[in-house]
């Protein structure tokens, strides 16, 4: 039964190759997208931290998104 599952009655090469191509491509795109997102979150945090306290407070007051990124910074790092 396991041997039938692997060989797919002679079509194993095509079936497994198709599924592998799809899942490897999807995994690469997922990890690249996640990496880019994290990079932008970190860059944003660095820019925020480079501001003076007054500028930082102003930026945080004006932007809930900035607050959110700052709040989740522990996850980012």
């Amino acid at each position, binding site marked *: 039964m396991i041997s039938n*599952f692997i060989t*797919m*009655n*002679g*079509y*194993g090469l*095509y*079936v497994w*190759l*198709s*599924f592998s*191509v*799809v899942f490897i*491509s*999807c995994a690469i*795109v*997922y990890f690249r*997208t*996640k990496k*880019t*997102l994290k990079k*932008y*979150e970190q*860059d*944003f945090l660095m*820019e*925020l931290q480079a*501001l003076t306290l007054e*500028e930082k407070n*102003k*930026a945080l007051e*004006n*932007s*809930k*998104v*900035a607050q*959110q*990124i700052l709040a*989740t910074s522990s996850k980012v790092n």
Partner: protein
Amino acid sequence: MFNFFSSTNIYLLIQKLIKFINSIFFLILVIGLTFALILSPPDYLQGDAVRIMYVHVPSAWIGLACFSVITLLSVFNFIFKIKNFYFINKSIAPIGLLFTCLAIVTGSLWGQPTWGTWWAWDARLTSMVILMLFYIFYILTFKLLNKKELIIKVSSVIAIIGSINLPIIKYSVEWWTTLHQPASIKITGSNSIHSEMLLPLMVMLLVFLLYAALIFLMKYKTEIIRIKKKNINRN
């Protein structure tokens, strides 16, 4: 109501949606793969090669759906000048390109055991390659052009011209004699696919849709951060 669509609210919603998709994705993936590779029956003619359908068909559908959304939003953007549509399109295009490429590759892998050839320049296959080229041109406008207004104009024109290809892809199997089989699943009319194969196909479609949504949300979130970063620099 329009306040709900502010970048802040959208950002919070994106975070919740990403968490939700992450929490259910692997369970649905395992169910989908179990159905597709083990539980679904082999085809009476194609044997187990039919299992390629469970990755090929959802890929092709999502490839087509993404371009349809891009075209629709490009038209709306032309008329209503809503900036958000530009960022949505920019986030969707790579997903559409990925799934179109996957549909072509898996189609080729399915073609060899069933048609006896990896590739044929028939109407369906050629029109899918044209769709892939339109995706590449569309994405290149974001990479090569600098002015946002120009990017919106050029990318919208590419999307609208490319949309002519969508009905050609859909009806190519009816208008011309092709190696590709006619549609087995129809929105109107009866399906020529057995429910034992239709169910795994729908589960795999859900898996692919969740994956596409996850990538879209992550890319869109990146775009929002990019805008906020620019705003900080301006202040």
